[in-house]
């Protein structure tokens, strides 16, 4: 840790010791939380590790004079999104331990680790050999002022007014979508049809080994459904009676 601090002190143009300490501690918290999200067996533990990472990122925002975003980060992410995650986890009752060691696809994990490591080292090397930024002049106002809530507000309502209004439409669409998705099917008949379709799909892999012509013979419902004339179906029987 002291070597890392020494590198940090010498590489940048004389950062103060408290800055270095806060950065190192919050970066460690961020990385530990992120790794915890990935490796935790219990989804509830993953959600709590996610809270830890989000708080670390909020501290890094404060360290870069983005105090408004730090507050919004804590309120929106830790206060709303993670609570929504926890609500869904406990609502569905999936907060059980999961066997993380089981590997459904052979060779997927080494491949994923290799690809991610390749991409990460590529990005980091690219940052060493080239410039991170293009050096374009800013268009939206300077970030040097201390109370940047004023700057964000002014920019949000002038330069970015149309995207800001578009987010309202996005949120309305998300609310309507969530209501439609969470609604139960309107009638009992349609839900029973859904269950029948699910049962047929569940039985499909068993019949998959049967060749094509024999499969219709193995499933006696399907020829009847095809050859039954309209008006003689089960749904119309009540009407005729």
């Amino acid at each position, binding site marked *: 840790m002291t070597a890392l601090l020494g590198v940090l002190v010498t*590489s*940048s*143009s*004389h*950062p*103060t010791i408290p*800055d270095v300490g806060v*950065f190192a501690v919050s*970066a460690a918290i*961020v*990385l530990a939380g*992120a*790794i915890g*999200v*990935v490796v*935790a067996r219990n*989804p509830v533990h993953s959600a709590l590790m996610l809270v830890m*990472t*989000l708080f670390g*990122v909020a501290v*890094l925002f404060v*360290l*870069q004079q*983005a105090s408004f*975003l730090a507050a919004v980060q804590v309120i929106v992410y830790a206060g*709303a*999104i993670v609570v*929504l*995650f926890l609500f*869904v986890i406990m*609502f*569905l009752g*999936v907060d059980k331990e*999961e066997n993380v060691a089981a590997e*459904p696809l052979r060779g997927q994990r080494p491949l*994923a*680790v290799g690809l991610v490591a390749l991409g*990460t080292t590529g990005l*980091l090397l690219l*940052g060493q050999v080239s410039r*991170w930024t293009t050096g374009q002049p*800013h*268009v*939206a*106002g*300077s*970030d040097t002022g201390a109370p*940047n809530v004023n700057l964000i507000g002014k*920019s*949000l309502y002038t*330069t*970015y007014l149309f995207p800001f209004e578009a*987010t309202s439409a*996005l*949120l309305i669409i*998300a*609310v309507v*979508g*969530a209501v439609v*998705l969470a609604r139960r099917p309107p009638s009992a008949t349609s839900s029973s049809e859904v269950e029948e379709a699910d049962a047929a799909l569940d039985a499909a892999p068993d019949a998959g080994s049967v060749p094509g012509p024999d499969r219709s013979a193995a499933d006696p419902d399907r020829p009847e459904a095809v050859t039954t004339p309209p008006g003689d179906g089960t749904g119309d029987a009540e009407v005729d009676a």
Partner: protein
Amino acid sequence: MSISPSWYLSLSVVLFAIGALGVLVRRNVLIMFMCVELMLNAANLAFVTFARTLHDIGGQVLVFFVLVVAAAEVVVGLGIVVAIFRRRASTNADDLHLMKG
């Protein structure tokens, strides 16, 4: 003078890599969603760092929009997860092969 931006950007790269690894490796849909949130946070950190480096408040405004889009995405995504769980009683991504021919 504060920390050099390259440290923040390196941290952002590593955080994004961990999130991408989680999406690729984990099979629980909820945890895959959380890893997507990790990647969004890595992007936010890079945005704020560039906003400070370039003295441009637009980066911070973009982080604001990313937060809004993330909230909407989580609401719709969790609605889909609940709807799937109602039919399949599972949050495992490997169980969702209804469209396989």
